[in-house]
C-alpha cells in the first residue's frame, strides 16, 4: 500500500499550527520539536552532567534552568533533563543523546509525548498567573519550571520576558489550549 497520500497534522488536528492572538499576546502551537529525556544513573550523576554539557555545548542546566544552543536542555527534576531541538534537523535526537550519554544516563524518546505552545508579546505574566501557581517574579530569562496547568502537568520555560514556551502532554492538548486561550481572554 502506498503511503504517499498521508497528510501530517498537528496535535490540535490542523494542517497548519494553530495561532491565536488576544490583546498583545499571541499563542502559537509549535509542532516542530524533537524531545528526549535524560536521567542520570545512580552514581553516574557528575559524569552524566559532563556528557550532557558536551552534547548541548554548554554546562548542564542547574535547578530550574535551561541552557544550550542548537540543542537545548532544561532541568526536569533532580539529575533529570529534557533535551529539545528542531525536529527538522534532529528527528533522531534520542539516538544522538543515547550515544552521547553512554552508560551515564538513561534516555527516552519524548517527541510525540508532548505538545508545545509559545506565548509571545507583552503581558504574558498576567496570563500565566491565571494558569499556574509559579512565583512568576522569580522566573527570568533561562528559567524552567514544572507545574500544574488546569490539572495538567506542564513545563513552563522563560526564553525571554516576551517569549515563554509551555510543554504539556500531547494527549491533553485540547484541554491545555482551552485553558491558555480562556486565560488570555480573561487577563488581556
Amino acid at each position, binding site marked *: 500500500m502506498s503511503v504517499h497520500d498521508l497528510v501530517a497534522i498537528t496535535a490540535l488536528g490542523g494542517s497548519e499550527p494553530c495561532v491565536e492572538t488576544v490583546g498583545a499576546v499571541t499563542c502559537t502551537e509549535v509542532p516542530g520539536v524533537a524531545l528526549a529525556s535524560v536521567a542520570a544513573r*545512580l552514581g553516574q550523576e557528575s559524569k552524566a552532567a559532563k556528557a550532557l554539557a558536551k552534547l548541548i555545548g554548554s554546562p548542564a542546566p542547574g*535547578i530550574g534552568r535551561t541552557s544550550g544552543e542548537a540543542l537545548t536542555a532544561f532541568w526536569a*527534576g*533532580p539529575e533529570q533533563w529534557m533535551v529539545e531541538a528542531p525536529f527538522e534537523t534532529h528527528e533522531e535526537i534520542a539516538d544522538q543523546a543515547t550515544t552521547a550519554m553512554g552508560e551515564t544516563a538513561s534516555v527516552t524518546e519524548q517527541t510525540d509525548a508532548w505538545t508545545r505552545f509559545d506565548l509571545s508579546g507583552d503581558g504574558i505574566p498576567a496570563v500565566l498567573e491565571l494558569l499556574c*501557581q509559579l*512565583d512568576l517574579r522569580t522566573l527570568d530569562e533561562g528559567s524552567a519550571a*514544572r*507545574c500544574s496547568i488546569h490539572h495538567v*502537568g506542564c513545563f513552563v520555560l522563560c526564553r525571554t520576558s516576551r517569549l515563554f514556551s509551555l510543554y504539556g502532554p500531547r494527549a491533553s492538548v485540547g484541554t491545555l489550549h482551552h485553558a491558555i486561550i480562556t486565560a488570555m481572554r480573561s487577563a488581556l
Partner: protein
Amino acid sequence: MIINHPLLGPRDASEFAYLGDASLIDRPDWQAENAAEAFYEYAYLRDNPVGEHRELWFHEAGDRSWLVVTRNTMTHEISKVELARDVARARGRSK
C-alpha cells in the same frame, strides 16, 4: 500550607501528594528469617503521634521528587524538609 522544597523553595501544599509515615523508607529484608512478621508490621502497624511526625510527600505537580517532611500534627507547623533520597542514602539504602 506551604512546603519549603529543598531544591525549589516554597511551594503550595496542593502541588504535593501525601503518602504516609516516613518509616515506609525502611522496607524489610524479604529474605530475612522473620520476613513475614516484619512485612506485617511494615504494611499495617503505624504510630499515630500527636505532635512531630515525619512523613513522605511527593511533588506531583512539580519536579516529581519525594520529600521527607517533618510536620507537627497539632499545629501543621513544618520544621524540616529533606529529599527522601538523601534520607534513604543516609540510612545505607541505594548504595
